[in-house]
């Protein structure tokens, strides 16, 4: 769109947020009763649903079993009606496969796989409006916690971009489509360790630190929110159990 300012002179973005401000996040754990763990998260207009089954025995060929740790299996699919133009195949295309591999890499770093023979994580995105990877990781973290699978730490993710000398946190679809540099970061907040870092488009290395710091701060803010959601869920569960 010609003339669309991603950052106005007063420092406001297209949707009225400030540079470091996140979109509204709402989340819920335990959405489905039959799965071992499930969670739903809404970040702005992006809605992601994550479902976890496991740890259970290896399905299919036993040769894939690892003798000392669990196998983490991720599938990413997005609903055909989620994007503006209807998508023909929900999963199996290259982008979904790549996203599945990235999610797998992220969660293998966080889950204590030595304790279990096998886990499987399936992640589903319902509607996309930018920040898909971040919403998926956040939803998956909550789902893995809901399933009771032990993790080293929360995994909180956020995207970041760089416009007019300012680092923007939590990009929406409009900002992603504008074609500037984008960084996706998955962080383990307590230790500050990075589980996954991905950057697209060109960015001068002098600016990298600022963008990385913006993304890390946003991920820590997400962690505060997710922590609150988990505590609320546990409180509700213990009330129902009558403790």
């Amino acid at each position, binding site marked *: 769109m010609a003339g669309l300012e991603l950052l106005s002179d007063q420092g406001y973005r297209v949707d009225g947020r400030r540079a470091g401000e996140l979109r509204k996040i*709402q989340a819920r754990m335990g959405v*489905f009763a039959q799965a071992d763990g499930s969670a739903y998260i809404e970040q702005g207009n992006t*809605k992601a*649903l994550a*479902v976890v089954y496991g740890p259970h025995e290896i*399905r299919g060929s036993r040769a894939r079993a690892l003798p000392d740790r669990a196998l983490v299996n991720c599938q990413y699919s997005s609903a055909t009606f989620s994007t503006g133009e209807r998508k023909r195949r929900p999963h199996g295309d290259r982008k979904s496969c790549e996203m599945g591999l990235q999610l797998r890499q992220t969660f293998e770093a966080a889950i204590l796989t030595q304790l279990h023979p096998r886990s499987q994580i399936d992640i*589903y995105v319902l509607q996309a409006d930018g920040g898909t990877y971040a919403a998926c990781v956040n939803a998956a973290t909550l789902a893995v916690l809901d399933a009771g699978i032990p993790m080293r730490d929360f995994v909180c993710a956020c995207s970041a971009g760089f416009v007019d000398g300012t680092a923007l946190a939590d990009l929406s679809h409009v900002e992603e489509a504008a074609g500037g540099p984008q960084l996706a970061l998955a962080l383990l907040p307590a230790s500050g360790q990075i589980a996954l870092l991905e950057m697209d488009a060109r960015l001068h290395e002098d600016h990298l630190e600022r963008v990385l710091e913006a993304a890390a701060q946003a991920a820590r803010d997400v962690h505060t929110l997710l922590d609150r959601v988990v505590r609320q869920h546990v409180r509700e569960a213990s009330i129902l159990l009558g403790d």
Partner: protein
Amino acid sequence: MASVTLSEAEKVYIVHGVQEDLRVDGRGCEDYRCVEVETDVVSNTSGSARVKLGHTDILVGVKAEMGTPKLEKPNEGYLEFFVDCSASATPEFEGRGGDDLGTEIANTLYRIFNNKSSVDLKTLCISPREHCWVLYVDVLLLECGGNLFDAISIAVKAALFNTRVRVLEDEEGSKDIELSDDPYDCIRLSVENVPCIVTLCKIGYRHVVDATLQEEACSLASLLVSVTSKGVVTCMRKVGKGSLDPESIFEMMETGKRVGKVLHASLQSVVHKEESLGPKRQKVGFLG
């Protein structure tokens, strides 16, 4: 389909209960579980609906796109169905595992809509032989708790009721098509005659409506009956590996018609009530 393994004792328990018109959760043979319906849950579709029937969770999105009418029906638009059995329902649906079930359900949906009266397709025509609206109805199966066909048909009906297609104006003689100026100017589909599927599972000597996964494991044969709100049967199909007596088929069909009429009446009242709350109502979605 997702299945549970039951022991012989559990199966006998269920079968004996059904003979006495008392199912495991206390329902009678013709009672549905509590159904939750919500429309307009996905914002960038023309219409959407979410249905929760016990543990079965379905999400339907309808997207309207412009296309060319089919050669044999130049004055009508058409519907395309696609069913995605997502891996979140059961790990067996990962990759291509859910394709078989998805195709079976999509073919059933095509069959029940394959008659002149279900949906008035002439309202979807823009200009004959050149442009028409194609409604892509995408069904997403999120959780499988038994009785998929019923839940999916209820969700499809609710989503079609919620569908709003923008009105186009085309000037006479010119090929240009423009959107009308008013953004709220829409075509709504009439869903009076859209059928719903009622699945009747034969357990022992009796049949039950709305079977759970455990009850489906005890039943050898089922009958799918597609019924409109007036009690007209548009399609009927027997599924399952067992065989059915001709008399049972007639009995099951009568039950299906009776139950279907009640189902339609409740669904109509609920979606109308939801619509009367207006666009400012609180949308719950998965957060509630």
